[in-house]
């Protein structure tokens, strides 16, 4: 889709930086823009709560589709009695349609629909953000105990934000899987919300 005046910007939400994310970009033989987002700046800007998530932005810098799960393949992963389903084929077909047709695409959301999907951060999420950024700062300045304290505070204040949990768990890799499974099993909502490519 390169000749269609379209650019993919991938942002690794990795406080571990190039050391954590670089080899994945290499393995993917990435030909798109590859960012190393140690501060989770992109997630903060668009209020993202999991990965992978995608946002479509037009030529003028306006948001065509606010954040949603962005997979490229259809997969169903059984996890105990539950499962995780990705809807990558429908998502990439919709993306292709918009890249070709622009605002005439049925997947370019109306203002009304946009307003339904984009909400200001409530107070608990604001507080959580403040602590998460403090956690990253202490991680980067080699103060792991203070980092852990504020990463935990962020998770308590905004429990639905998987990025806060998983970034923190990544620093204790032997326990990360167990912690993920525990939280996943407790969660009522699907791990990846069902895509609403067109308004209901």
């Amino acid at each position, binding site marked *: 889709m390169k000749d269609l*005046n379209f650019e993919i910007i991938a942002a690794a939400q990795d406080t571990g930086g190039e050391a954590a994310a670089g080899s994945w*970009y290499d393995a993917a033989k990435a030909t798109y823009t590859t960012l190393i987002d140690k501060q989770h700046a*992109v997630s903060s800007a668009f209020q993202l709560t999991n990965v*992978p998530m995608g946002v479509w932005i037009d030529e003028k810098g306006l948001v065509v589709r606010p954040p949603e799960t*962005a997979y490229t393949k259809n997969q169903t992963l059984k996890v105990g009695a539950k499962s995780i389903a990705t809807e990558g084929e429908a998502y990439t077909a919709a993306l292709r349609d918009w890249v070709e047709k622009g605002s005439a695409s049925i997947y370019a959301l109306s203002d009304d629909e946009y307003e339904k999907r984009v909400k200001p951060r409530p107070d608990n999420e604001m507080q959580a953000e403040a602590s998460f950024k403090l956690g990253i700062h202490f991680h980067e300045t080699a103060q792991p105990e203070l980092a852990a304290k504020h990463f935990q505070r962020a998770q308590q204040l905004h429990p639905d934000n998987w990025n806060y949990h998983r970034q923190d768990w990544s620093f204790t890799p032997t326990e990360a899987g167990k912690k993920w499974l525990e939280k996943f099993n407790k969660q009522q909502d699907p791990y990846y919300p069902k895509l609403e490519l067109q308004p209901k």
Partner: protein
Amino acid sequence: MLARYGIGDMEQRLNRRDWLALTAIAATSLRAAGTAKTTILFDDRATVLATTKTDTAGLWIRKSDLPQVNGFEVKPQGACRAEVCIPLPKTVRKGDWINLTGFAKRAGQSWVSEGNTWSFTEVPILRASYLRSRVAPEFAVPDRKGRIVKLSDSQGKKRLIVTWASW
């Protein structure tokens, strides 16, 4: 104390000298606390300030440091950034100083501090263009070679911003 130990005239004078010395030490350490090096986090940037003060009203910084902390500038009508001005009552501005936590309260920011490090969230009013007018918020994030990539660098193209993580 004096009565209990029956301290004589000489001892009393010594005591007084000790007290004066202790007071001087205390005053020095208080001043030191008032000018501690402070790190302020805002918009994924850490600003280190050599001169700040804290009191019951929170964190005070020099007015002249405000622009480097969060892009706002103190003007007669308030603290302003582009077209946005947030009025500053007298309680949050004193001489060369501005109460940064008082400003944050008025701007609707959240914050948390740990020791001399303060973390402030986004200013909600600056988010209005994203929430209401669909303007994608700007970001500036390094690529693998450390070059800063801004969203606006690719203005004029359709873009998919997609996040992922190694964890």
